[in-house]
């Protein structure tokens, strides 16, 4: 999806959101990964950063989805490659450069995403609960316009990050 298409889609989504203002809404951060729109509850987003490649310290021998560590205001923040973790893509067409800092349990993780689309209010009654049988457990719900809401706690488990043997 090129930028223009993405912007159009964003405008459409935002326009739709305004029609639903009477219902209870969830504020989400919308971002793109592997040409898909994904969202996380904004309450779980601690920050959004731009990755300076020289500041990334790789941790050799780590599971593949861990890009390494950055020192963010004194906090050691593990960076997780979104394309690798969510879609198993080990070599994305262009490296992810945007970090969404998410809180999972007591820890913060930086999720590397392709780009940020924006903030959006999703009426809660539009959140469709997926059938558990066929979908990954980190999918909290989907909307009719193909936005996937991520369950941060179910996504950033030690097991998903490649540390399965020692539990979550």
């Amino acid at each position: 999806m090129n930028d223009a298409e993405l912007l159009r889609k964003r405008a459409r989504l935002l326009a739709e959101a305004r029609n639903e203002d009477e219902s209870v809404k969830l504020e989400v951060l919308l971002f793109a990964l592997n040409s898909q729109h994904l969202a996380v509850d904004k309450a779980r987003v601690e920050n959004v950063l731009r990755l300076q490649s020289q500041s990334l310290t790789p941790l050799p021998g780590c599971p593949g989805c861990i890009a390494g560590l950055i020192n963010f205001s004194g906090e050691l923040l593990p960076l997780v490659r979104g394309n690798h973790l969510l879609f198993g893509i080990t070599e994305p067409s262009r490296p992810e450069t945007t970090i969404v800092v998410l809180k999972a349990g007591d820890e913060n993780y930086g999720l590397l995403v392709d780009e940020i689309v924006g903030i959006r209010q999703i009426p809660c009654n539009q959140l469709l609960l997926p059938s558990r049988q066929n979908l990954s457990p980190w999918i909290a719900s989907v909307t009719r316009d193909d936005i996937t809401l991520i369950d941060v706690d179910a996504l950033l488990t030690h097991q998903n990050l490649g540390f399965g043997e020692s539990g979550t």
Partner: protein
Amino acid sequence: MREEFGQNLEALFQEESSQLLRAMRDGLGRLHSEEAADPETIQTELRRAAHTLKGGARATEQPEAEMLAESLERALKMVKPDQLARSSSGQEFLLQTIQLLSDCLDPDRRPASSVIQSRLEQLDQLPSQISVPETPAGAQSELDLVFRGEAAHCIQALRTALSHWGRPAFPAQLKQAATAAADLEGAARSTDQPVLEILAEHLKSLLRKSLQQNCAWSHERAETADQVIGRCHQIVAGESTPSAEQVMELLARIARAEEQVLESTEAVFESSEIPSASESQALSLVPSREVSFETGLRQTFKEEVEEKLIELGDILVALEQKPDPNNLESVFRHFHNLKGAARSVGAVAMEGLCQSAESLLAQVKKGLVRLESGVLDGLHETANLLNALGRDHEQPHLQSVRKCIALLDALAEGKNPAPNHSLEIPAISPQDLSRTDLESIRISSRKLQKLASQIQELLSLKLASQQRVLELRQINARLKNWENEWKRLQPRLKELDVPAAVKEFLNFNSGFANELKQSLTSLTRATDQDRRNTTALVDSTQEQSKRLLMSPFSTILGRFPKIARDLAQSLGKKVEVQIEGAELESDRRILERLNDPLLHLVRNAIDHGIEPPEQRIHSNKPAQARLKISVYPYRGSQLQLTIQDDGAGVDLSKVRQIAREKNLVSPQQAESASDQEVLQWIFLSDLSTRSSASEISGRGLGMAIVRDLIMQLGGSIQINSQRGKGTSLTISLPTTLATFRGILVKVSGQTFVFPTARVHRVLRIRPEQEIHKLEGKQNIFLNAQVLPIHRLSELLLMPSPLNPKGPYLTLILEAEQRMAALIVDEIVSEQEVLVRELKPPLSLIPHLSGISLLGTGELAPILNVSYLVQRQGPLHSQLPISSKLPKKPLQILLVDDSLTSRALLKSILESAGYKVETASDGEEALAALSQRPWDLVVSDIEMPRMNGLELTRHIRADRKRTGSLPVILVSTLHSDEDQQRGLEVGANAYVVKGNRAQTKLLEAIRSLL
């Protein structure tokens, strides 16, 4: 997190149980209204609801509710549906039982154990009671049954509220008693029993007046009440009806007591006698703001009890070893203080226990009772029970408290009762053992650590200021070069024909540069001064902060004598624990993380190492084994800790055999390995010389995890053992975690740090002359030793071209008496580095022990030398990071109709690393099974629509798809027949819910997958 889960589980069960109870009431209602087309179906629903409640109560550890639900389920199984449908009194009785069950699940309305006990007995009689034919006399007998049930309930409630082991009742108990008396009065009125009614009414009045006057429940009043209750009991039980004179006499006594109450100037309830939380709610006398005060008081009490019990445990062990009067006095004082503390928060059971222990000790002090093993065991059991009471609600332990008080009282009378195995003193759970008294400090250790880690951050300031000075000096040096060059050029410049304006400009520039140089020199000098000041300040602040985080080893070792004694006793062994060097200090974080490994090692020593007394005597050893834990300083900033036992030692032939059987080593290795090498196999993850995990060490961590935990602390562990003589484990540890001197190296352009203490030497190796191939592996010879040599880049899977001719920069690393050589691209420097801990999950990466923050702001991973050196050994020739890569988790389908059981089991299985999906009955499970392949099914038996047995039958019937799928049935049904039925339909294992169900289930799963 575990606590939070427990709360969630309880909340879930509360929700589920209220639905089930409602459904049961509805079911009984339908049965009563005669709308019921099919009483059998209704009764099955009722039974299933009782069954689910039983399971939920067991999962949430509510034994009384569990027993009640179990009896209810049994009664519903025995009663014939048509008889129950006809018997309105039977239905009424069941409604009352459901109400009682509901009360049991409500912490604020929990009935006394005796009430439950009497209801359990009545439930057992229900089937025979309602099979009586429906005649007017039968109807009378049914009403009688209901009355008797309720009246017995009230009488028990009265007794429980007013007895309290002979000590004065608190307002809350008076309130409960008054309510029970009112209920008894009502029941008597409705069944037309005037004598009982009048007695109950007067008793109620006495209790209410005492409450209104805020008057203590004196001994005399308690006696009067006892007599009245005794009479009431006789009437209800049909034993005798008192004569008119007897009734009048009792009423007169009550009237006298009431008068005394009204005139009373005697002690009112003291402010120290603060009722418990539930009591204050029941009373509504305590303003709500006092509730938070009371919560604080309870918290303080809990902490005090915890501290006192640790001390008490130690002194009891000391008393056992050396029965001197000082120790005896100290034990006495501890029980006395605990009693006072318990009284101040209204913890009556604890107070009662301490009182009895105190009385027993008083007899011992007077020399009337001898300090024998029975007495000491009784005191130890009391301490354990106090521990349980301090931790939980009193309610579940009341039965044990009564038995323990009876035991102590018997001992005080000089009787030596037979060991009371039915005394259900709760075993010390692993969670208790792993709690350390580090938590008992009054500042949250989290806050303290945060402060200390912020202080550690100051080091980066110090390092940065050093870096700035260095940079300024570099600029100075460059300016100096320029100056020299300028001076060299100046004479030649004069010779050249340069226009005057240019010369003037050059002179101006030269002067300007000189000024800059002077400014720069003074700036450098000032910055260097600042650096020196900063360094001094940071160093001293850091030194202080390190002390802030230091605690003596006694904080974790202090409880080991008691733990060891209790564990040994449970195994019929005797052990004496000696501790040396407990006063040495170490970083609290190290101590905290050392607690679990140490606990495992001590358990291991007692369970596996130390022999039973008779075997020891047979081997010419003293019956009592010795376990010595010593701490001593080692190589400057390190400490060593040894755990040494004089037990049987490690059976090396068994280790060799198991390692070979489990394919942990090749047959050649198993044959050729030296004894010392075989001993190291103890640390392999899948090696256990026991054929089954025992109660004691089966709950432990495993030696592989112990070693990993110690390595994560930057330490190492070694084992020495001599068959028949004993085993000794030596743990080397740093004393602090914050900073150390490190050697910075570069590989593939990235900086890594090795702790300087672990680097034996740095060499330049010429590959052609100095690297030798032995058995296909590369080695170097150093001081008559053959050392394996590896490229660090290869171990870390990083691309790094190497000049084949060399020379190679090589670090000789040393850990746990083994050495290895590692080739790096560049050695940058040796300096002090700031260590930052890695948090989970990155802390699980075995070859990293932390991250250091360099003065340049760069992060550099710190390599775990112990791990790298160990992993070069013959057993693991490649870096085991591959084993840490994610395996596809095994998929388990969990089938259970109870929401609570489902949540509990799901959490257990997920914590063990399985991927779990759930279904709420057999039919739903079959649908899930048809969708995709699964690795295993765990199913409950009793479920609506399709039960677990039918489900297993279906699974086995589809030979092609699911015929060989492992199935484990998990149920509260525990008879042999139930298990037989389960195995007959083709289940692979049958686990009874309850004690150790978690361990048994995980063991069963591991054995099947």
